[in-house]
């Protein structure tokens, strides 16, 4: 039987639901209010000053991403290597000049230069949109992205699973001859291995360090001294050797240097050296690149800086960044930008940090030892 008052009751129920939803929206209101207030204040500041990694794709991603989100606030982006820009920032702050709002750089040298002079502000103080710091939104939870020792100033939003030791060209090295790190010591590969200078910061020294976690320092010394490993600081040179089979095994070569060659049709049978065969079974790890983010205390445009942090960690921007720079974001729901399927992070797995301050200190300790061996100066 249909009651005459049915539609009325349904209307009341629906009305109540609408009111509840509105109530929920009102409950969210504080952060939105803060967002509006910050946006207004940022508009008055008129500009945000960002230093970040060099490179046209990095510059374009940051500038276009910002201009799309906040077209009425100017962005001043300076692309430079971390060692250069941070040296400058340190001197400026010693002289009482506070010119920068945001720093985007790699873990080293940032964590060794900025926290000691108390130049960075706690990142969480800048977060307004609660979704940005929601643990469910990040592989390993939000806090796993902090790379500084205090775990509150400098944050890595991107990351690759595992790590590549380097590349091998299968046109000239068969899988039977070379399929694990121990094969590097085979006499047939003497003079055939090149490595990015392990004394320099970057992916080369990090992957070399990871190799020693499994094989030990003495093993690495044997490799360097016994196999006539050729060192280079030029990624292009290493890539040329790799694709031309002059040095068919290259350690410490980042993917972006090689991928361009492969895109052009060279080195089609070049393979990345990843997984337990090369690093041992020590659990999974992740590491970011030169795109960790922090914001300065005494930033000249604090409100614009807050907007930038929230934008940078948003899913849309992380997607833009990952696609533009061939990397992967830790933010769940973004598509991998790195064409290597092995580097994508799986939200269901647990990863250890291989690019945080503690790891970098171990890398530095290894570099000191390598210097003592006299194989590379």
């Amino acid at each position: 039987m249909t009651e005459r008052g049915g539609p009325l009751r349904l209307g009341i129920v629906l009305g109540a639901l609408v009111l509840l939803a509105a109530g929920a929206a009102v409950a969210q209101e504080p952060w939105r209010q803060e967002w509006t207030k910050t946006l207004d204040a940022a508009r008055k500041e008129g500009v945000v000053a960002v230093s970040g990694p060099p490179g046209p794709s990095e510059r374009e991603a940051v500038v276009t991403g910002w201009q799309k989100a906040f077209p009425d606030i100017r962005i001043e982006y300076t692309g430079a290597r971390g060692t250069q820009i941070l040296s400058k920032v340190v001197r400026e702050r010693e002289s009482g000049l506070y010119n920068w709002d945001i720093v985007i750089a790699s873990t080293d040298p940032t964590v060794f230069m900025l926290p000691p002079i108390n130049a960075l502000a706690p990142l969480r103080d800048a977060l307004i949109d609660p979704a940005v710091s929601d643990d469910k939104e990040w592989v390993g939870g939000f806090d796993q992205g902090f790379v500084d020792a205090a775990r509150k100033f400098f944050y890595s939003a991107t990351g690759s699973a595992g790590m590549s030791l380097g590349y091998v060209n299968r046109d000239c090295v068969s899988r039977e001859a070379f399929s694990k790190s121990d094969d590097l010591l085979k006499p047939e590969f003497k003079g055939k291995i090149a490595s990015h200078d392990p004394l320099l910061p970057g992916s080369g020294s990090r992957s070399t360090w990871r190799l020693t976690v499994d094989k030990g320092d003495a093993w690495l010394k044997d490799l360097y001294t016994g196999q006539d490993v050729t060192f280079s600081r030029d990624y292009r040179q290493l890539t040329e050797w790799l694709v031309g089979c002059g040095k068919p095994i290259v350690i410490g070569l980042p993917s972006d240097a090689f991928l361009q060659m492969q895109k052009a049709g060279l080195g089609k049978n070049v393979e990345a050296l990843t997984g337990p065969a090369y690093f041992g079974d020590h659990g999974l790890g992740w590491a970011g690149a030169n795109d960790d983010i922090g914001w300065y205390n005494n930033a000249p445009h604090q409100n614009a800086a807050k907007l930038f942090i929230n934008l940078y960690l948003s899913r849309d921007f992380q997607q833009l960044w990952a696609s533009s720079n061939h990397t992967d974001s830790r933010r769940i729901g973004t598509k991998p930008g790195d064409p290597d399927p092995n580097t994508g992070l799986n939200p269901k797995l647990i990863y250890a940090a291989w690019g945080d301050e503690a790891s970098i200190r171990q890398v530095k300790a290894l570099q000191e030892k390598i210097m003592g061996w006299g194989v590379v100066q």
Partner: protein
Amino acid sequence: MPSLRVARAHRENHLLYTAVFVVVATVVVAPLLFLIVDSFQIAAPGAYPFWGFGAWRAALGNSDIWLAMWNSVRLYLATSVIAWPVAIVLAWVVARTDIPGQNWIEFLLWLSFFLPSLTVVMGWVTLIDPSTGLFNQAIRRLPFINLASGPFDIYSFWGLVWVHLGQNAISIKTILLIPAFRNLDVYMEEAAQVSGAGLVTTLRRVVIPLMMPAIIVTALLSFVRLWQSFEIELVLGIPQGFYVYGTKIYDLLNVQVPEYGQATVLAVLVIFVTFPFMVFQQRFSVGRRYETITGRARRRPTSLARAKWPVFAAVMGIALIVSILPMVAVLVATFMKVFGHFELSEPWTLNHWTQVLRDPILLQAVRNTIVIAGSAALLSVAVSVVVAYILARTRYRLRGVLDVMTWLPQALPGMLMGLGVLWIVLTLFKPLYGTLSLLVIVTVVAGMTVGIQIVKSNMVQLGTELEEAARIAGASWFATLLKVVLPPLVPVLVLVATFSFVAASRDVSNIILLASGQSMTLALLQLDYMVAPLWESATVVALIMTLITTGVALVARACNLRLGVR
């Protein structure tokens, strides 16, 4: 050497000279002092200042550094033994003989100076890499040649020497010597030939001795400069375990936390090593008479007679190695998908040009480069004239100290110079910080050694008689400088302006700590692409720089200035 009368007339200008002395000391010595003082500061960043010898002990206690310094010296010696005779003969041929197309030959030498060094290095690698080099492969295909690799190896000591010779070692020396050779009065050569001396004897016994101020200054410039050389060695030296002083400095400035203290110690070490040479050239150039431009000066080319065309062929052979081949390499690199890989089914592309020309920051970088390099060129000429005049034509008491001070920017690695200037500016001239003017100043300071010393070495060739006549006729010091001293030096001044323009437009190391995104120059944009690493696109930016610089050289030609590109 100026006569006593001229010196007396200059006495009233000592105040002006002292002002110049103070300015040079402020921009050159003060940054160095800041660096030296800071090298004793061993506390970590942010910690309470703590003083000690840590940086000095670490730098001087490193045995590798001494080997690297020795490597630098032997590389310099090997290069110089070949480059000097070639450069002197080349400069004489271009400036003093009737060889056809001499101005275009000089222009080709300039072109080699304009070209991006890293691209040229990669060009040589493409040709003579021991296994994949195109030239080596062609030789190995010849009958009776049975080699697995080589025969030429660019990753060797002599490979390094070859690339240095092909890049700048010959061309820069020649460019810097040509104006001095041009200023030689023909009667001296004629007198030698009338006395029965042949061409070679005239060159050896008359021309070269008279050119000694210019030769010594150029030699010292390249000796001081050798300590900063690292780009070629980074690519070709490290794979063979060959480290030089420049790569050591580069390392110290590019580790996780830059070791500015240790880098300063090494810079001081170089100043210490080169100091006696600086003093020697100062005493040598002002202690004797080298007047080759007098009131009766005549210039007429020496006839090469039947040797004209063989000499022309030999000179073009050198031009081919130092300019034409590298220029072709640079041009080809910008249109190839991957430079050197002709084996690709479709090796050519316009993508690199499209990418760079669509870059929204390109126009700003072009504008900044022209403003900075143009201003630096004009300011460099003014600074060079004033300082060189004090050094060469006055008896100002502190001119010896001033002379040595002008060498310091050349001896200081660019990033250290930038850091020193950064300190000075942040301490004393904060309003300048972040402006294009600061970048102009730092590029002028960085390039002042070449400008001042080249103008000075040419000024000592000027006879004093015209100057004395002008002063007796009542001309003021400034009028005499403007109307008597400078006109014969116009080719040198144009050279200094062009040289400064090129150096400022290519400068990265001196300005990198002082520039921002808003003061991006083409050289910094090139670095941006290089780091990416978009190597071919970086070469496009470098080629745009080369085109702008070439345009400036051609404008100088259009203005009928005697640059030698007529």
